[in-house]
């Protein structure tokens, strides 16, 4: 087990290095740079700026300097949001995205699993069709439509919740629900499918033959296998949820990492792009690893293969 873990973690290094290298050169190929603005600066000022940020050195030199700094964990200054370094921005922004993502997962799992399992127990009856129709609607309605609609109802009509912001607990309800809704819908469909498949398996029939109650059959025996598709889906979904959503953060004015990432690209804020890309890459690698571990725990066949 330990060998498996350390091997996987060691694999992170070359992956991150490749991502780092490709991103470093690719963003510099895009037209326009961090110092291009509506009002132009004189060539002297431009030179001064480039010198200030060591961008006057040859590209290979800059790349090498970046790697050296990176190896010390320093992601450099932000060009566009200069008041803080990239490390500080990620430290400020990621916890917000993490918090929002965590609430959204709670919404997604709570609503999605309940609906999916409920639907699978009486397939092709109204108790199946109703939640599955809702789930299909949930998948189809994008969050940039759902968000403003929720605001319209709960903030502007009923005056129950704030329009936007991220200070009190009340601020967090609408963004969490908006972000979680479509994931809930996927989870509902996946868990229904997984459960339906498992419920036809021999070991379930055995369990029933032993005279176990339906509740024990479902919760103790079927759920563990039925959830496998959901867990496999959760890996990338978790990374996506926790790393922030540009759209939801924009609609609700949530100061998360998702907006930072997209704006950095528009601004050609090279260091910020590099920082967020590397951070996301690491995040996704870690989540994929966690999912593999979880799947091994859930499925004895995978566990014994190692």
């Amino acid at each position: 087990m330990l060998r498996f873990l350390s091997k996987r973690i060691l694999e992170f290094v070359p992956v991150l290095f490749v991502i780092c290298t490709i991103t470093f050169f690719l963003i510099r190929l895009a037209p326009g740079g961090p110092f291009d603005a509506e009002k132009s600066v004189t060539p002297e000022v431009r030179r001064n700026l480039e010198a200030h940020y060591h961008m006057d050195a040859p590209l290979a030199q800059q790349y090498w300097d970046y790697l050296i700094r990176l190896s010390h964990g320093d992601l450099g200054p932000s060009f566009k949001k200069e008041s803080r370094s990239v490390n500080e921005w990620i430290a400020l922004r990621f916890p917000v995205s993490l918090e929002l993502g965590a609430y959204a997962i709670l919404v997604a799992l709570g609503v999605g699993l309940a609906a999916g399992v409920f639907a699978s127990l009486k397939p092709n009856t109204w108790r199946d069709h109703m939640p599955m129709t809702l789930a299909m609607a949930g998948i189809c309605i994008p969050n940039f439509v759902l968000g403003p609609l929720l605001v319209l109802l709960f903030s502007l009509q009923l005056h129950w919740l704030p329009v936007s912001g991220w200070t009190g607990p009340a601020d967090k309800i609408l963004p969490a629900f908006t972000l979680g809704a479509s994931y809930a819908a996927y989870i509902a469909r996946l868990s229904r499918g997984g459960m339906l498949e498992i419920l036809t398996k021999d070991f379930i029939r055995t369990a029933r033959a032993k005279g176990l109650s339906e509740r024990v059959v479902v919760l103790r025996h079927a759920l563990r296998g039925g959830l496998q598709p959901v867990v496999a889906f959760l890996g990338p979904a978790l990374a996506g949820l926790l790393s922030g959503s540009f759209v939801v953060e924009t609609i609700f004015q949530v100061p998360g990492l998702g907006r930072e990432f997209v704006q950095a690209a528009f601004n050609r804020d090279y260091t910020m792009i590099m920082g967020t890309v590397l951070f996301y890459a690491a995040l996704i690698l870690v989540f994929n690893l966690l999912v593999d571990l979880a799947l091994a725990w859930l499925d004895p066949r995978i566990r014994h293969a190692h």
Partner: protein
Amino acid sequence: MNRHVRYLCAAVVATAMVCGCSGSGARQGASMVLRIGNGAEPQDLDPQITTGVPEHRIQSALFEGLATLDPKTLEPTPAAAERWEVSADGLVYRFVIRADAAWSNGEAVTAHDFAFSWQRILSPNLASEYAYMLHCIKNAKAFNEGRIQDFAEVGVRVIDDRTLEVTLEHPTPYLLSMQDHNAWYPVHRATIERFGPIDKRATKWTRPGNLVGNGPFVLDRWDPDEAIRVVKNSAYWGAADVRLDAIEFYPIQDLLTEERNFRSGQLDVTESVPLSKIEVYQRDEPEVLHIDPYLGSYYYRFNVTRPPFDDVRVRRAFAMAIDRESLVRNVLKGGQRPADCFTPPDTAGYTCSSAVPFDPGAARVLLAEAGYPEGRGLPTVELVYNTSENHKLIAEAVQQMWKVNLGVDVDLLNQDWKVYLDSMRNLDYGVARSGWIADYVDPNNFLECFLTGNGNNRTGYASEAYDALIAKANATIDPRERLAVFQEAEKLLLEDCPFAPLYFYTRIYLKSTAVHGWQPNMLGFIPFKQLRIATE
């Protein structure tokens, strides 16, 4: 952000609006706190580093220059300086700093503070993008470009603690108007030195608790991407007259989110209004919708280095075939004024008397004379604009006008902001959407853009006669004569026509009726120290 997303959001919200709802910006309780939408998260709060309008708005509450502007007339009025004298040749200004001018930590503001601040912004290593605003000071440009090392050679001299003498390179009638720009604000030396070398960018001196300013407000909280809160500065010389207890600046970039915040009463003043909402507010709540003239020009650049726009007749034909009245009335609908010149009317007493007329008949004749009758034989023309729903609508309207009035087919090319800037800089375009918002109120701020080699020219236009006229205007001391020379210059510019004027900007925003003391003006300058909140 993604324009499609915005567009869809607009559609959804607009539909829901029709289904019936109309709150208002009414607020509960009458605390003296102004909550204002401020567009974007500031780059920093260091007045010598930042370049944007959102930053300037916050800095104008935290710092104060030698002079400020009368919010109504935009004439310079005393601020940190109580008075000044100007020499007869317009080259030497002597400022007397008010005795009670103080930093927020209680220390007196002195002439040394200004000398230090200007030395800092001009230091080459700081690489301040707005340092060029100080280049009118004698030797300032040379110091900024590292050609002289000793700041004593620059025309800034401290006579005593309260007297500052500034010697200029050439007469600069707008010197006093510029004092409200953040590039000229004083910064507190001891504070900056505590957090790093004076010419290092982005040190921690601008954080709450560290920042020391001399404005009517002082920084209280800075939650990045959430809000910046400033509170009344009791050390400020005019503190007795400041009515607001605090101002909260919210960096809301999404116009629809901002509008919803206003509607729910979470904001008193917005930065802008979504286009789709203007008519709704005009109909339902005209008292909160404000449309002010704004000191800016929207125009289309022609690349004069490339056929067919290397021919002045083609440029004039294209410019004269745009029906600006119709564009403003039917496409923009935001109270904009159609433009037939570059400098907006009544800029520091200057209103251009020449014009590029709308005359499709004459335009067709010009195009035929240039060898393209009815547009036949004209090389493919591409109109470049940066991503925005507005720019797209305008470009489509103009494309249609050129088709109808000239018989010319023009391709539209949408580019991402930075790609667009790159095309501008490398003159890699035919026609390009452009805008210019003034930094200070003077025709020079507009007309100098088209000087040969000016970084904001970006058309390839170069005219010795034009350069000479602008230089002559800026060497003329008599204000009336000076404006007459600018008239000559702009007339020549419009004849050479390196651009097609479209309209003069307006600033469209929502403001709660509880905000009093507001004064609309062309710079969008907000006089925070005279505002108050009252619900009656």
